[in-house]
């Protein structure tokens, strides 16, 4: 477990890493990175699934800002959480698990995340 908590919701899956600083608008929760496979889509209240974070350490504050603005994902599921995302989800209090085989998850799947037990199930 990276950050504790439980959440249910619809998966939105990115095969590419996500850089939150300059990558997602903290006011809307919409992916704004040019050419990113999720560009134009909102991650608000979704279970956001991606391999790992990338980019500036200010990304941690963007994750925190999304939560404050009510546009954060309900939970984050990673293959391997690096420090920028780990810092962000802990500051924001967003449930987050890693070490998950994310290839099996598809956008639109209904997921139940129990970060306290480090499990991701199908709802």
């Amino acid at each position: 477990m990276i950050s504790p908590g439980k959440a249910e919701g619809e998966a939105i899956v990115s095969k590419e890493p996500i850089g939150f600083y300059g990558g997602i608008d903290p006011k809307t929760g919409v992916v704004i990175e040019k050419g990113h496979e999720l560009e134009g889509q909102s991650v608000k209240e979704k279970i956001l699934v991606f391999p790992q974070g990338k980019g500036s350490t200010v990304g941690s504050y963007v994750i925190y800002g999304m939560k404050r603005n009510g546009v954060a994902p309900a939970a984050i599921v990673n293959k391997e959480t690096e420090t920028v995302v780990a810092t962000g989800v802990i500051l924001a209090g967003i449930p987050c698990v890693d070490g998950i085989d994310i290839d099996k998850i598809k956008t639109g799947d209904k997921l139940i995340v129990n970060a306290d037990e480090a499990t991701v199930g199908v709802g």
Partner: protein
Amino acid sequence: MYLTKEEERILAGERGEVLERMFRLLVRLGDIYGADRMIPVGSVQVAGVSYKSIGDPGLEFLEDMAGKGAKVRVPTTLNPPGMDLVDWRELGFPEDFAKKQLCIMEAFKKMGIMMTATCTPYLVGNLPRFGEHIAWSESSAVSFANSVIGARTNREGGPSALAAALCGVTPNYGLHLDENRKPSVAVKVNAELKHNSDFGALGYHVGKLVKKGNPYFQGIKGADVDQLKAFGAAMAASGAVALYHVEGLTPEARLMDPKNLEVIEVGERELKETCEKLNTGREPDIVILGCPHASLKEIATLANKLEGKRLRKPLWICTARTTKETATKLGFVEQVERAGGKVVADTCAVVSPIERMGFKRTAVNSGKAANYLPGFCKQEVIFGNVNELLKKVLA
């Protein structure tokens, strides 16, 4: 990771929400990097101060923490904000920006952090000893502390450094451990290094090549503290170098064995090419020196160079406020001002919104500034040694 009874209590929330969350952050980072336990730190340097870099999300986070009564447990100093905190109006910093920046400073102050507002804490009284464990952010200060002093810190981000300040500890991994301080690559330098900018160019070039490694330099005959400060800053900006060794100069070099390492050769040609690459403009709108923040010695040298001269373009020498105050008492600031220059306190070229202040082409002698100005501040860069730069702007 092993946790003490008290640390278990913090994690269970018995010491309040703020400590629980910040300690959890340290535990998770420790888990990710395989730390065995927490270790006490002697001091903390917190980065992520400029409104330009952390924006509203950062400001809200800091105000939330300060509002909940967060207080630092160890001596903690602060990185530069995006403006001179006293003379911002006169220097032309935007009003809306200043308002937000002052709120950020207030939040840090409430948490008990010293308002040093400099990237060179080691020049203004936060000076660790050899071997001391510290938790610093600000990549140039991390490099200086590890390499020139032999203190021990990882490259912390703003939040993880703040967490260390509030909890008084940091996870024991990375550069806190002997085995990770060994050199990963040898760099043979066959070039004359005279000016700070020569060290900046070498640092920029090597940082790009080695990225995250610990380079071991051979062939550097001499360097003063200001040159090493510029050198490490450039390497940490173009790459992510947090520790370097220089044979015969830095304190841990003699403990290291450079045999059997991959060797990179750097000569005059590579340095010349690096300077050409960093130069993206010709005629500067402004000259900004002091990246990292200028020492008293550097200000004195510049003041003497400017004696009896007249500048045609703005010139800023960025430094810490306490250094500026000393330089004022000693008459150097007046000397600079008589020539038409300014000694700007607290901020620097990289974190201030100079692109909103009418500047498009900035001349610098810093490899770090040359690395960041095109992206962060939309500037064309004129990179050169201080004599070349002054020649361009003196009447």
